[in-house]
């Protein structure tokens, strides 16, 4: 794969606007999606791991759904819900004039949809591995659920949470089917790296490979950087 790349042509490609746009869009939307996943996923995972309530099995099954949907079907599901004529999308557009498809927000939404289960399941696993007695200790010291969660549960489960974040981010970055089905493909707006690579490949194999390589290098570099900073807890 590395050998197949058109090395002399690479610098020119790197300067090409579609590549820069797509790379930037991919990185920002994946990061945004990861943050949203964390915001939604952490409490959800905590609920699933620590609180014993009636609908727990059902909620867990629900969270798992996007995991087993083929990406394209995920896109269709998203459209049914958030499309312009969708169950939630239609009222939303009526009220605010805003609609998700064909926008950056749509890309983030698609990423969140496919990545959230990864985050939730990985984090739930981590929370279950951590000793719940510490939560109890925090409670006897007067910590509210939120304080205990923030200052004890999360730090103790941190390695697992970070793993979940990496998984979510990477899943978003590589995601293709749901994004293109829900948002289509427009350079600078909804054209992420995988989409760019896909369409480029239809015309020019080698160019697509070069693009893949760029994406690979950038994302692995970011992951390695993150790992060295945060993920290797002392």
């Amino acid at each position, binding site marked *: 794969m590395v050998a197949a790349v058109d090395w002399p042509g690479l610098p020119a490609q790197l300067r090409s606007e579609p590549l820069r746009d797509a790379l930037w869009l991919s990185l920002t939307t994946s990061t945004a999606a990861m943050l949203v996943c964390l915001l939604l996923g952490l409490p959800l995972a905590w609920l699933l791991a620590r609180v014993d309530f009636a609908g727990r099995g059902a909620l867990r099954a629900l969270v798992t759904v996007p995991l087993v949907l083929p990406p394209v079907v995920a896109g269709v599901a998203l*459209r049914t819900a958030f*499309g*312009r*004529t969708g169950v939630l999308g239609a009222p939303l557009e009526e009220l605010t004039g805003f609609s998700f*498809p*064909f926008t950056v927000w749509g890309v983030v939404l698609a990423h969140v949809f496919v990545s959230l289960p990864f985050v939730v399941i990985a984090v739930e696993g981590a929370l279950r591995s951590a000793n719940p007695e510490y939560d109890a200790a925090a409670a006897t010291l007067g910590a509210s659920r939120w304080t205990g969660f923030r200052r004890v549960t999360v730090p103790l489960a941190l390695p697992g949470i970070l793993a979940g974040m990496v998984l979510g981010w990477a899943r978003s970055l590589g995601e293709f089917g749901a994004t*293109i*089905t829900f*948002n*289509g*493909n*427009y*350079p600078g707006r*909804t*054209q992420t790296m995988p*989409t760019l690579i*896909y*369409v*480029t*490949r*239809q*015309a*020019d*194999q080698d160019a697509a490979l070069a693009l893949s390589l760029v994406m690979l290098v950038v994302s692995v570099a970011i992951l390695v950087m993150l790992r060295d900073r945060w993920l290797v807890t002392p």
Partner: protein
Amino acid sequence: STGTGAGDADTLTVLAAASLTDVYAELATEFEAEHPGVDVELSFGSSTELAEQAADGAPGDVLATADPISMRVATDADATATEPVVFGTNSMVLVVPAGNPAGIAGLDDLAGSTWVRCADEVPCGRVALALVEQNGLSSEPASLEQDVRSALEKVTSGEADAGLVYATDAASAGDAVEVVPVPGAGRAATSYLLAVLDGAQAPGLAQDWVDLVLSEAGRTVLTDAGFGAP
């Protein structure tokens, strides 16, 4: 019927562009009726993908692509045993969702609406681009779709107000879409090619398949689905 090559396997494997799904399924039934004991195995995918797989030695007896460029990937790799033949064409049309909610009457109305077409790099995109340029259309689409099916779906689902798709897609969508006439649409067309593959396990059956597609019966099935004559 035509003679079956001795030593041929009893399965015919056809690699075909995804847009041929319906017609090839119909032709396969006919083929199996004509060749008792023979199974037709249809493997659909994107033209480029299939051509590349054929070049990589994917099992298959015939390859049908939706454009000449993909077919060239296979011929360049010496993966074909026979000269590719054109067996049909497909032209671009403008479709709107049933009821035409955005009131699109022609290409000029696309400005300001949410419309889609295929990306420049994919076969259907090249055709659409030609049509757009012919008509001097300057309005930008909301999305450049990965394949024509996705473009059609954006319209049938109501996400897009209009889309440029193949005539065959418009036909298969039935009542879900309405076709808006576009000047010069017939000229913006692509041709479908068919060739027997070099690594065919059943070269005789493969040739029979080519013959069936090119036959009068084949012609009828293709025309019914909206394909044009070669």
